[in-house]
């Protein structure tokens, strides 16, 4: 359960973003408590990925304020680096480093950013690889692994930086159906361990199982926020009803 006593670990206030003339995020305001698990869903083009990418400055915003763990996310390198150390991200297309082994993928950032000695970085990496059940692949290269295995490695790689918040940008959308479960299981395990998570996904089963809140976005706005049970049983807006009927219909 999220800790409601402490201040929100993420505060988004009146966030507005344009891609040129296109207004892609409209007046987004959202508070995320520490330990909260939020699933962000909505039709494609609604701005869900753009929103979470603003949280680690992979995208810039033109108006509004984003505060992550007390650090104001502005244009200063120091603040951006500080936030990026606290926030891990898992991508739709895994983005593992193809020229490095699995172990090297995991130890790169701990060695060069956290300045850990190699041995310690490797020990921690092995622990995370065991946690995502992929320890036997340490000396292989990403191309030798399946999609599901690669994504689990990607999750372990982010965890090696000991982030306080994990962002997931459609983590299972590139996977063959039989591999989705192994990745979702890892994410459920992470959630049950108390990690603050923001997950952009179409996997509504995952939302039902683990999310504290579902945030529904449409055309750059947050149109509806509710607990999963309420959201799936009684969607308030027409757009949400339409979306759910399409997603859950097949």
């Amino acid at each position, binding site marked *: 359960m999220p800790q409601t006593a402490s201040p929100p670990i993420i505060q988004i206030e009146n966030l507005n973003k344009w891609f040129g003339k296109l207004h892609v995020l409209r007046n987004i305001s959202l508070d995320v408590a520490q330990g909260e698990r939020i699933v962000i869903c909505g039709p494609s083009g609604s701005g869900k990925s753009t929103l979470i990418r603003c949280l*680690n400055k992979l995208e810039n915003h033109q108006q509004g304020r984003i505060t992550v763990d007390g650090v104001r996310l502005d244009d200063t390198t120091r603040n951006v680096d500080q936030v*990026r150390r606290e926030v891990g991200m898992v991508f739709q297309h895994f983005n593992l480093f193809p020229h490095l082994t699995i172990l090297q993928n995991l130890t790169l950032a701990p060695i060069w950013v956290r300045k850990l000695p190699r041995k310690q970085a490797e020990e921690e990496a092995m622990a995370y690889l065991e946690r995502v059940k992929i320890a036997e692949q340490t000396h292989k290269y990403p191309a030798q692994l399946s999609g599901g295995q690669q994504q689990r490695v990607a999750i372990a790689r982010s965890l090696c*930086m000991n982030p306080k918040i994990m962002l997931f940008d459609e983590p299972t959308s590139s996977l063959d159906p039989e591999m989705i479960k192994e990745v979702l299981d890892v994410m459920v395990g992470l959630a049950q361990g108390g990690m603050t998570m923001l997950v952009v996904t179409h996997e509504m089963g995952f939302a039902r199982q683990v999310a504290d809140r579902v945030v529904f976005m449409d055309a750059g706005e947050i149109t509806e926020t509710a607990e999963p049970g309420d959201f799936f049983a009684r969607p308030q807006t027409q757009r949400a009803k339409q979306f759910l009927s399409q997603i859950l219909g097949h």
Partner: protein
Amino acid sequence: MSLVHTFFNSQIMLASLPALLRGLINTLLLGFMSIGAGSVVGLLVSLVRLYAPKALRVLAIIYIDLFRAMPMLVVLILIYYALPFLGVRFSSWTSAVLAFSMVMSAYSAEVFRAGIEGVPAGQFEAAAALGLPFAKTLRLVVLPQAIKAIVPPMTGNCVSMIKDTSLASTVALPELLNEATNAQALNANPSPLIMAALVYVALLWPMVRLVSILERRTQSRRV
């Protein structure tokens, strides 16, 4: 006078061999110095071209376009014969290394740029998301992946550079062609020139073959 006696005169060839070998050493020295300096400067220029603030990016583009548009011989002659009128006098070695390095750097910069731009954006994003500073991202993640796309055209550039060292003969640098031309004048016989040509081919043919193999390998991998 037979053709062999004129063009493949073994006596004259043997007599001019020491001079030609001295010239070859200078050719290789000049070539490697220009390749070395040109590559390093080219990498820096490509990074400025890609990532510096707008004003510097424009300067980089002008630099690259300028030295790709000017013949290397013209650059060399401007430095060696025109600069002295401004009071700047360089030796033939300095002029040659300067001219060749600058032109090499312009061509290299474009090769590096293409290689770096070929690395998927997701690689940059994953490294950034892990908190890796940009310089480390380039060194540890991007450049190692860009190398594969860079090697074939760079090898071609290196072959061209070594061939173009022959231009330094116009500023009296004692490289291979210069020595051969002198030997030809001395002996009133073109055999030394033929031998120099054979030396160039013997030296560079393996590299030319290598470039073809590397280029074909890049094509097939793309399919």
